[in-house]
């Protein structure tokens, strides 16, 4: 099978173009347009301080690192908004402190581990060093006293899940994976293997990689 090692590449702009059509409901258009537009508005953190948000941004950058395009969604911003507004997702591991405490402690822990392993704070590290620190956290073996109160691998699992939710919930990243499920009006006619409606994006030929516009 031709694409077993090479996942398909999809053209950019697909979702953004379809949002303007009758294939999208008003509620869907409002939700997705707001998500695209909010990144252009000025913003400052309400929950984290400047140092914390810088560390969290650096962590999120590694967790979502790929083609390193500069319009990737600001995942840390969405996390800050959630914590500032006191919202949760309906549950947490009882072994972890409440989210606001867990995040503050964990960000301290990340710097503690970075300092123990490389002598400087996380934001000062090279990407491969940052990845090393994050791997020790994911595996539950990160050095530092903070991790005695925040179980590192559980925190990492929760963080990664939230990062994935925010990242793959963003229309621009959904374009990358060829998802256009939001264009569900009036209906999907073609349901089944290799069955595509006209508006569904086709993969780009060969190894073509298009920059986002």
């Amino acid at each position, binding site marked *: 099978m031709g694409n077993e090692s090479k996942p398909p590449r999809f053209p950019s702009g697909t979702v953004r173009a379809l949002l303007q059509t009758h294939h999208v409901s008003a509620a869907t258009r409002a939700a997705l347009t707001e998500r695209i537009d909010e990144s252009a508005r000025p913003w400052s953190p309400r929950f984290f301080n400047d140092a914390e948000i810088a560390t969290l941004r650096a962590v999120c950058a590694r967790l979502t690192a790929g083609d390193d395009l500069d319009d990737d969604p600001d995942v840390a911003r969405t996390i800050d908004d959630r914590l500032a507004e006191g919202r949760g997702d*309906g549950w947490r591991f009882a072994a972890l402190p409440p989210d606001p405490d867990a995040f503050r402690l964990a960000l301290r822990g990340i710097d503690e581990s970075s300092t123990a392993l490389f002598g400087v704070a996380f934001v000062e590290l090279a990407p491969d060093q940052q990845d090393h620190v994050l791997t020790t956290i994911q595996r539950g073996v990160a050095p530092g006293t903070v991790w005695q109160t925040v179980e590192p691998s559980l925190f990492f699992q929760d963080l990664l899940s939230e990062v994935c*939710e925010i990242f793959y919930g963003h229309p621009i990243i959904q374009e990358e994976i060829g998802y256009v*499920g939001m264009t569900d009006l009036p209906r*999907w006619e073609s349901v089944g293997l290799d069955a595509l409606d006209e508006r569904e994006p086709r993969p780009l030929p060969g190894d073509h990689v298009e920059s986002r516009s």
Partner: protein
Amino acid sequence: MRRFRHDEEVDAVVIGTGAGGAPLLARLAQAGLTVVALEAGRWWQPERDFATDEIAQAELYWPDERLSTGTDPIHFGRNNSGTGVGGGTLHYTAYVPRPRPADFRLQTEFGVGFDWPLTYAELEPYYDELEAILGVSGPSPYPWHPQRRPYPLPPLPLNAPAQLMTRGCASLGIATSPAPNAALSAPYFQAGIGWRPACTHRGFCQAGCSNGAKASMDVTFVPLAVSAGAEIRPASFATRFERRRDGRITGVVYRSKSGEERQHCRHVFLCAGAVETPRLLLMNDIANESGQVGRNLMAHVAPQVWGRFSEDVRPYKGIPGALISEDTHRPPGADFAGGYILQSIGVMPVTYATQVARGRGLWGPALREHMRSYNHIAGINILGDCLPSPDNRLQLSDELDHRGLPKPLVSFNLGDNERRMAAHAERLMRAIWEAAGAEGIWVFPRTAHTIGTCRMGATDDMAVVDADGRSFSVPNLTIADNSTFPSALGVNPSLTIMALALRTADRFLSRIKGG
């Protein structure tokens, strides 16, 4: 909608409007009773309010924090905790196979678990009635129960995951069939409800159906109840019961936007689900003489197997659970009690990405590359029985929520039986996916649904309610939701919650008529 005064003594207050509360509410109202339903969540207008967007639709899931512990902490959220008029049915997959008669007698058959104090035969007329009201689309004859009454509508079309599972199962000699789904394959009319349109194959059942094709309670039993004179009060969270010295409840206290309110009533029906029902009882310290409230919490064994196919799958299209096999109800080579059903699954990107995060731990370039194959991903999962264990339980934690009430603390450990069943199913599903041509097969270990915590039984020393849902100790308190299930049943619970609710209502009505 009819409205009642708070100081008027209504016949019944129903707490919760999901698969338990809504059918029961409709039945009581149709019998001429004065009834008020309290619903913690909002009353949505799906066509106007529901976006085809998983992030926006997170409002359908219970927002208040549950604390999870044990060796296998339950992940709450998407698959087991709805809020809003319609409850969990707002986000259920609408996969509605019936349980088998044997599922109700696990103790008799295997010597483990707990028999139900009622039989399949007692629920069968309610399954027939429900499938007609909901407009279930399914195959007739049904391969594993050919004598049953035909489904009212033909099955929905098979999406790509269903076609792949058909292919894999066929090469292994496993029978499959289009699944029964409570979503309409054609426009459908019911008196008191009106016309509902056919499914448009949005694939979005788990995050809210926007056109009413899926039979959630807000488009079926809620309009039936309202047209028969019931009042629904959304954004009303029940917190306390007022009681007489003899133990009878005289009123339900709840929080609404206007503050604390109370509704006087003759009877209370608690239909808040397997977390909030026991939580409310424990907070009020009632109906727990048996010490069983909160115990025997069960969650279906529900591992998912995912794989990548060379064909275009586009897993966001079509009814997510389009295919079923019941060949594994009592599978050959089983080293466990009970059994499971097999189901094909489509998936939305955010749900899949979070599973990749928790199940694979992928991040950075590995995550991005994996997710680029999203349009070629398809899954299978099982829904398997879970034995009750008294140590799997819900308690009140010391931590308070934003209302100042104790958060629920839920402890769950998979038992040996569940682990053996999961291992059996994972082997089988891997084989099916290999036979279907999948690459990169991986298993997401998982449980689904919350069941039990206020089980029904014959006697008050080992159960919270009797077979009619009546509390053994509070004379006018009845429970009708998934908390009363004495065993988990090897199928999705919603249809049985509804059947039990209709039966509970009928038993109640015949009792009060008889004086």
